[in-house]
C-alpha cells in the first residue's frame, strides 16, 4: 500500500516554504516530488523594470537574509565586468573578509539547525551561542547584525577600520580555541553518527549529473569551489583549496555526516582566509567613484552582458546581467541561487530512507528557500498533513530508538 506524505508547504522541518511530496511504502520512501513555490516575489522583475542598478544592489541583498552578501556581490561583479569599473585593492580584500564572515555565521547557523533536526537541542543552543561572536563582529563592522549593505559598484561603502582589527583577531582566536570542542561534539558523538552516517547518500556521479553546488557537491567528492576554480576579488592571492570530507576522515561516502564534515572544515578555512587577509590588507581607497549619479550614468551608457559567480555558503550563486545603452534598468537579470540546483539532489538522497530522516536529509543541503523561490506559499490543505512538531517528534523518537 502506497501513501503520499506532503512535507510542507510551510516547511515542517525548515520553517521555510517548500513542499516535498513523498510516496511511501510502510516506512520506506519510494518516490519524491518537489513543489517549489506558489507565489513569486519577482525580484528579477523589480531589477528589470522598477529599480535603477544601484538600488538593485540592495534589492539583491534582500533575496536572502542569510547569504545577503553573495547575491549583491554577483550583481556587482557582473556589472563591473560590463562597464569596466576597476575595484581598488583594499576594497577587494574587504569584500573577501565580508564574504568569509558570512560563511562562518551561515555554517554555524546550519550546524545548529542540523542539531535541532536530530533532536539534539542542547547542541543547537551551544552552537548558536558560539555563533554570536561572529554576529557581534558583523554588527561592529557593518552597523547591523544581518544585512551588510556594504557593496557598491567599484568598491565598498564601509572600511574595516584599524580599531576593528584587534576585535576580529580576538574572534578568530575564540573560534580557534573552541573549534576542537565543536568538531568533537559533531563528529565523535554517537547519536549524531547513528543518525547521519549512510543516511541521504548522494553519489559522485549523481552530484555531477545533477550539477549540485557547494558543500553538497564537495561532500560527494567533487572538488568544486569557485574560490579555487575561477577566483574573484582578491581570492587568487589566497590559493583556496576545495574541501572534501576525505581530508579529515580519509573516505568520501557522500552522506549527511560528510556534509557536516565539509562545513566544519570550511569554517576553519574561512578563519585562515580572514587571518591572512588582515595581515596582507593593502591601504588606500575603498571606492573608485564616490558619486552615485556618475556611476548610474556610466552604467546607463554601457552595453554588454556578463555572468558572475560567487561561492556562497550554500554553493555557487550565479547572476547573468545584460545592459543596454540608454536603458535605465538592468535589461536582463537572472539570479541562480545555490539551492535552486541543489534541490534536485533531494530525490536520490531521500530514496529508500525513512520518514524520520526527511528533516535531517532535507536540511543537509542547507536549503534556503528565499533564495530559490523568492516566495510564500499559501496552499494545499490535504487531510494528512504532518505538522512540524509531529515530524520533529518522529525524528527524536528515532534517535531514542537507536540509543536503546
Amino acid at each position, binding site marked *: 500500500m502506497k501513501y503520499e506524505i506532503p512535507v510542507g508547504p510551510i516547511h515542517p522541518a525548515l520553517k521555510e516554504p517548500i513542499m516535498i511530496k513523498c510516496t511511501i511504502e510502510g516506512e520506506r520512501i519510494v518516490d519524491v516530488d518537489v513543489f517549489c513555490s506558489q507565489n513569486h516575489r519577482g525580484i528579477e522583475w523589480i531589477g528589470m523594470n522598477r529599480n535603477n542598478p544601484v538600488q538593485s544592489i540592495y534589492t539583491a541583498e534582500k533575496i536572502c537574509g542569510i547569504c545577503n552578501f553573495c547575491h549583491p556581490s554577483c550583481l556587482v561583479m557582473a556589472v563591473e565586468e560590463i562597464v569596466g569599473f576597476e575595484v581598488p585593492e583594499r576594497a577587494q580584500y574587504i569584500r573577501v573578509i565580508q564574504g568569509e564572515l558570512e560563511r562562518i555565521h551561515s555554517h554555524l547557523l546550519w550546524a545548529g539547525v542540523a542539531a535541532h533536526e536530530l533532536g539534539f537541542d542542547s547542541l543547537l543552543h551551544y552552537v548558536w551561542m558560539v555563533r554570536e561572536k561572529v554576529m557581534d563582529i558583523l554588527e561592529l563592522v557593518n552597523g547591523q547584525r544581518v544585512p551588510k549593505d556594504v557593496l557598491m559598484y567599484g568598491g565598498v561603502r564601509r572600511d574595516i577600520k584599524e580599531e576593528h582589527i584587534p576585535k576580529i583577531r580576538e574572534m578568530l582566536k575564540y573560534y580557534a580555541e573552541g573549534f576542537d570542542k565543536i568538531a568533537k561534539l559533531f563528529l565523535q558523538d554517537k547519536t549524531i553518527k547513528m543518525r547521519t552516517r549512510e543516511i541521504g547518500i548522494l553519489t559522485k556521479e549523481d552530484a555531477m549529473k545533477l550539477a549540485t553546488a557547494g558543500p553538497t557537491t564537495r561532500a560527494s567528492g567533487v572538488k568544486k569551489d569557485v574560490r*579555487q576554480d575561477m577566483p574573484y576579488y582578491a581570492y587568487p592571492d589566497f590559493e583556496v583549496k576545495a574541501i572534501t570530507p576525505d581530508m579529515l576522515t580519509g573516505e568520501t561516502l557522500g552522506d549527511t555526516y560528510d556534509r557536516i564534515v565539509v562545513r566544519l572544515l570550511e569554517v576553519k578555512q574561512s578563519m585562515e582566509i580572514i587571518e591572512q587577509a588582515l595581515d596582507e590588507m593593502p591601504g588606500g581607497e575603498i571606492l573608485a567613484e564616490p558619486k552615485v549619479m556618475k556611476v548610474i550614468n556610466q552604467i546607463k551608457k554601457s552595453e554588454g552582458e556578463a555572468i558572475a559567480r560567487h561561492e556562497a555558503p550554500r554553493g555557487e550563486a550565479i547572476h547573468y546581467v545584460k545592459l543596454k545603452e540608454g536603458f535605465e534598468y538592468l535589461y536582463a537579470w537572472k539570479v541562480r541561487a545555490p539551492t535552486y540546483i541543489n534541490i534536485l539532489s533531494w530525490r536520490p538522497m531521500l530514496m529508500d530512507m525513512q520518514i524520520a530522516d526527511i528533516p535531517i536529509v532535507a536540511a543537509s543541503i542547507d536549503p534556503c528557500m528565499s533564495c530559490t523561490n523568492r516566495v510564500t506559499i499559501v496552499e494545499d490543505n490535504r487531510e494528512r498533513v504532518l505538522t512540524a512538531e509531529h515530524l520533529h517528534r518522529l525524528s527524536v523518537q528515532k534517535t531514542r530508538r537507536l540509543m536503546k
Partner: protein
Amino acid sequence: MNAEEIMQQFQEKGYEVRLSERETGVKNRVKRKGVWVTVGRENLRDAVSFLQEIAEEYPHFSIISTADLGDDVELNYHFMLGYGKWLEEFAVTFKVIIPKTDLSVPSLTDIVPAIIFSEREITEMMGVEVEGLPDKRHLFLTPDFPEGVYPWRRDETGPKETNKLYEGWKP
C-alpha cells in the same frame, strides 16, 4: 582543455564564437574567461552533445538566462568546464535567438538531467515552448497563474495587470 582550445573546436565546427575576459586579483592577477557560442536552435542539441564529448569532465550546467529583444527572445545556456583545478575553470555559454512568432526550443533533459528546473522556468516565465520536456507543470508560479502572461517579457504579454502592487509607483 582550456578556453582557447574549446573556442577553436567550436570555430572549426562553423559556429560563431566570442571570448570574454576579466582580470581579477591583487598580487596575483588572473583572468576569468568565458566562451560565448552562438547556435541556432536546430544545432543546440548537437552543440551541447559535442561539448560533452570533447570536455574532460562532465560539463556543469548552471542556468538558462533569457532576454526579451523585442521581436526575438534570447536564451543563454550556461555551462562550466574545467572545475576542480586551481584557476582552470571557465564558462561556456550557448546563445540561441528565436523569433517570437515561433517560440520553441528542443528539450535537453535527456542529455543534461539537471536542466529540468530551468526549462520549466523559461516555459512559465518567458513563454518558450520546450519540445519534449517531460514535466510541464508550473515551477515557481501558481497553477492558476493567468495563461498568456509571462513575467520576463517586455511586450504586451508582460505582467502589467497581474502586478498591481507597483501600480503608480513610478511617475
